[in-house]
């Protein structure tokens, strides 16, 4: 937990809403709105939230797969938000990603050996023979018979395809891998295989993970620290044990209490939130959660709470504290 | 849990539904038996491809080509649904048996208002006049927790959020006081806080209306919350069938056991997540003998050769496995009060 690998400062990503004949910008979808956090070397930071909270957009923006509207992304002393696209290409070796959908994240027309070797080719690493050797090693490491490298994606199951995606990300020896809902689309019995694979690889290759998910149970198992997002903002961020023992933000409390537990006797005080998530194009004034908050105060509809450190390493954005 | 003295609403016997594709015959449902009693919720649990959805569609005869129910019976109120004509089924669907689907966006007709879709059912099944139907529809929307129902009744499905749409679907399903509700992954596509709302709503409505529910899902947490009894399906067959607590506290089938030990959960600290090796088998090439044996840590030679039958090995606890005793021991070893479930 010592050194910061990536530092995100006041990251903003707005998507323009265009209407009319001349495509005038009539509004903005405030997908990510002033988000700051650090990711420490070797840890797994779990980023959790429901649909529309901006977690995936945050990930894509950090990787410059979406251009940030403003803010800084500090990596190895450089602000990735400001460098040119060409310069960014070099950093891509260190910052890899694994996507959610195993069926569309592999080019259906490419043999998997080329899918995995593509990163190496793009960065002119190793000669062809050595590349395929590395592909074989990687396949073996992720649990796929190396001989299968001549096959095409459609010949593999969802879980296997996800393993191929992992091999592809590992090929470049990255420092950090962003897992964007990487297990959400898998069958339950396969999910734990892949989760365990993630954990093993992290130890072996000294990886840092930004693990994005909507399933708190998975986040609890795999993360060292947890960050909760709501409508484009981080509302709470804390080490895992602290977070689950002492959930502070009302939304985070509701989220934790909403997760169904596979135990018929589990009695919990369930917090049922009223209403639906508002649109990120038109977020509420003041604290974005206040219309649905069961602990709302007057100040909440006027003033937006900032992220404050309540106790060591435990930050909350809420007027209650 | 009230099974004794309760009426049997639905009895499914030896249901077999096969898909006749150009690549071969897919035995999606291959000999399934279960019952649903008045006022209870039966959970059908399994992963993708196990046949749970096909089972439900077969019962209400909503199968699509190339699927065909080739054997079995589904007794509802004493009559075999599978023998009924399409015309007769139409009188039953929406009125006595209602379905709620996973994707509310595609099950609600986008060109009709949601009010229309509710009143339509009322007018068809109860021959209500328009005014009465509309009143009842508004009351139903209110009951399912849709705010300002008088206004929302005139809206279209795309104007509602996912959670609202699912509530509208539930309203539609309950419009004619069905005896049996079949819900196919109704909350899978919803956010978890919305899912919690919908589950609470369903539980309260079921109690109010005293309806029965077949809840189809892959989520063990959801099923623990809402089901009274559970049937676990794998490769087209039921592999374990008993009440909810027994499933979670003393599973007897290796697959059930595997599932329980491989899911991450909030209520306890997990040192190491177990996993079930391998993958769900290709429905065109099921293994010989027990369909689960290639992935089973308890499998022996017998399992490779002979497929086990569903047997009642303990009171009201049926399992399809030669080695359920071993599973029982393993489950005990893990001290399930600490590992499989955590009591309060």
């Amino acid at each position, binding site marked *: 937990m010592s050194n910061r690998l990536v530092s995100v400062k006041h990251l903003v990503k707005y998507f323009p809403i265009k209407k009319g004949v001349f495509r005038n910008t009539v509004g903005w979808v405030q997908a990510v709105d002033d988000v700051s956090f650090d990711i420490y070397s070797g840890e797994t930071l779990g980023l959790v939230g429901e649909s529309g909270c901006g977690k995936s957009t945050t990930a894509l923006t950090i990787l410059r797969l979406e251009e940030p509207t403003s803010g800084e992304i500090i990596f190895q002393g450089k602000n990735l938000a400001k460098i040119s696209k060409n310069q960014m290409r070099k950093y891509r070796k260190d910052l890899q990603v694994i996507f959610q959908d195993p069926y569309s*994240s592999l080019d259906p027309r490419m043999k998997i050996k080329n899918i995995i070797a593509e990163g190496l080719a793009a960065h002119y690493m190793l000669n062809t023979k050595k590349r395929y050797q590395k592909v074989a090693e990687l396949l073996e490491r992720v649990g796929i018979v190396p001989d299968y490298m001549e096959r095409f994606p459609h010949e593999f199951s969802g879980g296997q395809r996800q393993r191929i995606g992992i091999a592809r990300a590992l090929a470049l020896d990255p420092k950090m891998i962003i897992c964007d809902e990487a297990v959400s689309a898998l069958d339950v019995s396969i999910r734990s295989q892949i989760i365990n694979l993630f954990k093993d690889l992290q130890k072996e290759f000294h990886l840092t993970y930004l693990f994005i998910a909507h399933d708190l149970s998975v986040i609890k198992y795999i993360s060292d620290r947890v960050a909760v997002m709501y409508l484009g903002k981080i509302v709470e961020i804390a080490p895992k044990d602290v977070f689950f023992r002492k959930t502070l933000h009302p939304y985070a409390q509701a989220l934790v209490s909403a997760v169904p537990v596979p135990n018929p006797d589990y009695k919990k005080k369930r917090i049922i939130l009223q209403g639906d998530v508002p649109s990120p194009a038109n977020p509420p004034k003041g604290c974005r959660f206040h219309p649905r908050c069961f602990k709302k105060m007057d100040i909440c509809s006027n003033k937006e709470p900032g992220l404050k450190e309540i106790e060591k390493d435990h930050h909350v954005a809420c007027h209650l504290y | 849990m009230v099974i004794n003295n309760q009426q049997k609403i639905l009895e499914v016997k030896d249901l077999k539904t096969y898909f006749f594709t150009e690549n071969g015959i897919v035995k999606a449902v291959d000999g399934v038996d279960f019952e649903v009693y008045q006022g209870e919720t039966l959970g059908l649990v399994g992963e993708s491809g196990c046949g749970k959805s096909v089972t439900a569609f077969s019962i209400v005869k909503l199968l699509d080509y190339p699927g065909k129910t080739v054997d079995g019976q589904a007794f509802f109120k004493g009559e075999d649904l599978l023998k009924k004509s399409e015309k007769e089924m139409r009188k039953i669907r929406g009125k006595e048996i209602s379905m709620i689907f996973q994707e509310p966006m595609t099950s609600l007709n986008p060109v009709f208002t949601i009010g229309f879709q509710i009143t339509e059912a009322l007018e068809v099944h109860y021959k209500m006049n328009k005014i009465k139907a509309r009143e009842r529809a508004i009351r139903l929307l209110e009951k399912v927790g849709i705010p300002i129902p008088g206004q929302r009744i005139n809206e279209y499905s795309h104007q509602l959020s996912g959670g609202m749409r699912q509530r509208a679907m539930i309203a539609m399903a309950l419009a004619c006081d069905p005896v049996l509700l079949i819900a196919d992954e109704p909350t899978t596509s919803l956010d978890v806080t919305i899912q919690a709302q919908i589950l609470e709503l369903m539980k309260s409505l079921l109690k109010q209306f005293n309806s029965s529910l077949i809840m189809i899902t892959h989520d063990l947490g959801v099923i623990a919350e809402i089901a009274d009894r559970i049937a676990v399906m794998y490769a087209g067959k039921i592999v374990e069938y008993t009440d909810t607590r027994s499933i979670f506290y003393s599973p007897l089938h290796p697959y059930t056991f595997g599932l329980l030990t491989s899911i991450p959960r909030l209520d306890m600290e997990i040192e190491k997540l177990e996993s079930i090796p391998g993958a769900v088998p290709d429905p065109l090439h099921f293994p010989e003998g027990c369909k689960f044996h290639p992935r089973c840590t308890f499998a022996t030679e017998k399992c490779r050769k002979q497929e086990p039958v569903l047997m009642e090995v303990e009171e009201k606890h049926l399992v399809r496995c030669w080695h359920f005793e071993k599973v029982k021991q393993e489950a005990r070893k893990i001290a399930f009060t600490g590992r499989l479930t955590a009591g309060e």
Partner: protein
Amino acid sequence: MNRIIKKLLSNTTSLIGLILLFVFILIAVFAPTIAPPLFPDPYQVPRMSWDVEPQPPGFPMADDMRFIYESLGKPITRDKAIFGTAQGGYDIFYGLIWGTRTAFYIGIVTVTLSMLIGIVLGSIAAYFGGWLDEFLMRITDIFLSIPFLVAAMVLTTILGRGLDKVMIALVFFGWMGYARVIRGSILCAKEDAYVMAARALGVKDFNIITRHLLPNTIFPVLVQASMNIGSMVITAAALSFLGVGAPMGYADWGQMVSFARNWIIGSPGKAGEYWYAVFFPGVFIVLFVLAWNLVGDTMRDILDPRLRGEL
């Protein structure tokens, strides 16, 4: 691949199309044998006589013609006009046989070139989006708004008569359809996760377009292109018919039809007297276009469901 071939062969209509195509290919390949040329330029259609009026099938070579050829030292291997002669005594049979080569040449070259232009412009527009997309699409719209035949005629008037000028016109005004189709496909495909994955790996844009996007989107374009081969030939024939296009006496189907221009109706009292001047060239054109259409149609049917399923 094997499945595609199997499907192509099992379907009756596609089988007919394939057989027709095969026959045409044979004709084109064996043209020197079927209709031995009498001039150094094999595309120069020999005359059977000096008659202005078309002569019916089976017309024997006129003696004065024969005398000219023999004195020029040209071997006469055939002295009957099997399909008759067109205006000016040109041997229809010869024109149609060698015209097959011309048809393939026109069709394949124009379609390939216009397809390449369309793909380049369309994929750049779709991939980079923004003002580049707007700009390129407006250019496409401008080209599309010009009526083709008029534009082609204007262009050939400026450039002069000749088959190559006709082909330039066909390419110049024919790329827009491909551009649009590819643009649409790429706009969809570029949102696919594997494209984003390639970007995340650091693959250069050019490689993303050529290695990922195009291979996954090009099949519908190829199908459309194959069907357009027929229509290119018809359009070239139309231009020839209108007097723009291949020079007099050139072995080109359009030329053959244009020779019939004055004789379509026939003389008063004898309607359709010169049917052969229109019929034979017409049959060749129709069958050629039909062949490409049938094959292209079947290709499209094969590819559509497969595009949705696995590959």
